[in-house]
């Protein structure tokens, strides 16, 4: 089956699946071993994604405009023989015009998928895929409080890769008096899972994963009553202008989501996962500090040598301070 890779949470995998192709939301394993990631001024995650997307196990790649660096990396990726597609995702969501534009972009993505050998889905086929994904996402949400933070992060990572959910050992429960932390920011690397362990070893626990690869970026559940009538309209309604992202202007949905989560699950500190040259998340660091009044530690990482060691040292010092 043809595999179509993407990174941005605003690409609906069920749309790819409904065309008879295999969606695969990629995560870079690391930014340290990626040649493009070391380009001066380039977000190392964008560079690492571009490098990863060139691997032979992928047949096509979807980039989006939600991040300017990804938009520009697309130009480099396009030079490779592998088909690449740039999905325009508007930053604003408040007007009918941008909703219509997103709709036209998803339709254009459909034509791209057909050009790869996919087939245009019937309404029934699309609705069936949407229901399948909706059910998996419901199970994901149910698992959120029942698995250890690391185990849950692994479940999400596997879901992104395969679409499946489950099969994870629950992992250790929180120790008594563990300091509750939120982890927010850009996408986690596959190599980042050790962070959860490190946090727990130091007497804290990540009780909220608000990164781009966490629950925050799941679409809204579909309205099943309307699914049979207009599945495509339902797809758009659950994906665009609903998922809180940092690139939205204004990014009020992101802060509303955080406010709701913090009200449900109070935290004593925030870890902000961001990459060097990622302006969109970088600018939120101080704002988060002002808005929450909580200590915020930026887990910033570039592609240069020893960046990870420095990040770990800073995290250890932060946790020591909180303890």
């Amino acid at each position, binding site marked *: 089956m043809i595999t179509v890779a993407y990174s941005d949470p605003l690409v609906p995998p069920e749309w790819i699946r409904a065309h008879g192709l295999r969606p695969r939301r990629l995560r870079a394993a690391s930014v340290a071993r990626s040649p493009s990631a070391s*380009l*001066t*001024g*380039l*977000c190392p995650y964008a560079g690492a994604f571009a490098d990863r997307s060139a691997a032979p196990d992928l047949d096509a790649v979807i980039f989006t*405009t939600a*991040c*300017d*660096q990804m*938009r*520009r*990396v697309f*130009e*480099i990726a396009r030079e490779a023989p592998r088909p690449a597609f*740039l999905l*325009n995702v*508007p*930053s*604003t969501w408040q*007007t009918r*015009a*941008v909703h*219509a*534009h997103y709709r*036209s972009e998803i339709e*254009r993505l459909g*034509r791209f998928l057909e050009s790869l050998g996919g087939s245009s889905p019937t309404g029934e086929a699309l609705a069936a895929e949407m229901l399948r994904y909706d059910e998996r996402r419901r199970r994901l949400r149910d698992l959120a409080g029942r698995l250890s933070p690391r185990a849950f992060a692994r479940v999400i990572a596997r879901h992104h890769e395969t679409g499946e959910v489950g099969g994870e050992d629950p992992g250790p429960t929180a120790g008594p008096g563990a300091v509750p932390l939120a982890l927010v920011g850009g996408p986690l690397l596959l190599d980042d899972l050790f962070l959860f362990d490190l946090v727990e070893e130091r007497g804290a626990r990540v009780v909220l994963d608000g990164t781009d690869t966490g629950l925050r970026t799941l679409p809204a559940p579909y309205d099943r009553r309307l699914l049979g009538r207009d599945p495509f309209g339902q797809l758009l309604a659950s994906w665009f202008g609903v998922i809180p992202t940092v*690139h939205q*202007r*204004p*990014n009020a949905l992101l802060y509303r989501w955080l406010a709701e989560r913090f009200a449900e699950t109070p935290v004593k500190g925030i870890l902000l996962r961001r990459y*060097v*040259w*990622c*302006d*969109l998340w*970088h*600018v939120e*660091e*101080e*704002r988060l*500090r002002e*808005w929450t009044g909580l200590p915020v530690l930026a887990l910033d990482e570039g592609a240069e040598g020893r960046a990870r060691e420095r990040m770990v040292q800073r995290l250890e010092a932060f946790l020591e301070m909180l303890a």
Partner: protein
Amino acid sequence: MSPRPRRIRLEDWTRRYAELRAAGLSEPSYGGPLERHVLDGDLRLPKLLYDDSPAALRLWNFLLTEEDRLQAARAEGKKLVGAMKDLGTVPVMAWSLPGVVAFYPDGAWWIPCVMELSAGLLAVADRLGVDESFCPVRAMLGAFLTEAHYPIPDLLTCNAGAVCDDFSAIAQRLAGLGHPVLWWESPHRRRPDPGEEAVELPGGFTAPRGHVALVREELARIREALGRLAGLPLTDERLAEGIRAANRVRRVLRELRDLAYTADPCPLPALEMLIAEMLALHFCSDREEALAVLGELLGEVRGRVAEGTGVLDPGAARIFWVNPVADLSAMNLLEDCGGRVCGTDYLFSHALDEIPGDLEPLEALARMAVADPMTGSAADRAERICRDAARFGAEAVLVSRIPGASHCATEGRIIGDAVDRSLGLPVLEIEVPPLIDSVRAGISGRMEALVETVRRRRRA
């Protein structure tokens, strides 16, 4: 024949100004000796080289008194519109209404240079968490917080979507500090797919009809907001007249660029040309005066070309310059190294093209906005750079990286490859910080090498 025009220092301007006054120089209300701006804190001025014409004097005085004009407009009860991340669209609309003045808050990115960091704007941005990993436009945050460089506008608009992340992030920070922003969307411009309805844009590119339609709807929201602000509807008639006025500015600028970038010897320094080009974006807070300033500059250049005189020796290496510089002295430096600017892409080439006058006004403005090089690919930008560089007879291309800017990590290579492939010209990429003093020797050495490469190619 008039004395040969020269580039002179600020202290030379003091003497020159006295001579001109004695000879009966007539100046506008904002005129006066240039050195007075140093007393206002513009500490960089003594380190720059200036064209010695009265037209250049007027240009500089016009530029350096913008804050006074904005304060006066506010005092007169006019409404101020800050058009952010918008190189030439909303200002055309705002200036179509009586009693409305548009300006360009992003222009604060030159304040750290002009005031040699004494204004502390970058320090304010640092405190807000916007450090040097961002483009120097972060100085704008400081300008808003200190309110020392322009009044807080009555309406703040910002282009969003396919723009640089630096500005998008900084504008979001500003909004988060309590400054309401009216965001308007620009999609990433792409070539129309086969069978997709296409629209021709000013500047020669095409875009999908849907993209233009989206921007047109976005501009309709801006039109409503401007009308509410002014208390008058922004009718098609008013917009059409605003477009005609903007096109008058663009036509003057086009002739100025054609002459200044092609005549040999070079009739006007690169620094004055940079400022002249900037006037087309927002008219420096006075549209009619901007036209008059450019008109006088054009008259000066016409005269020099007719007399065969210029500010540089004949035969200077002809360099096409890509991207605006945060430190104005970089433009002087190229000329000191034996080069001259012949053609530019300061990231607003769409604002130099005439707005189509034969279309419904909002449609014409939308097409111009979609042509913004920032919204398109670097490959598109490179294509236009190659076209313009060939038209102006460039012998090399200099890509000036903007520190921290999200588009600069990858575009230099794409532009360089395109220039090499289609024109076979040498390309130099440099990075220009807000003050180049600490890296001047390095930049100068690289510019000299580029100029030498051009000379060697001439000899070959």
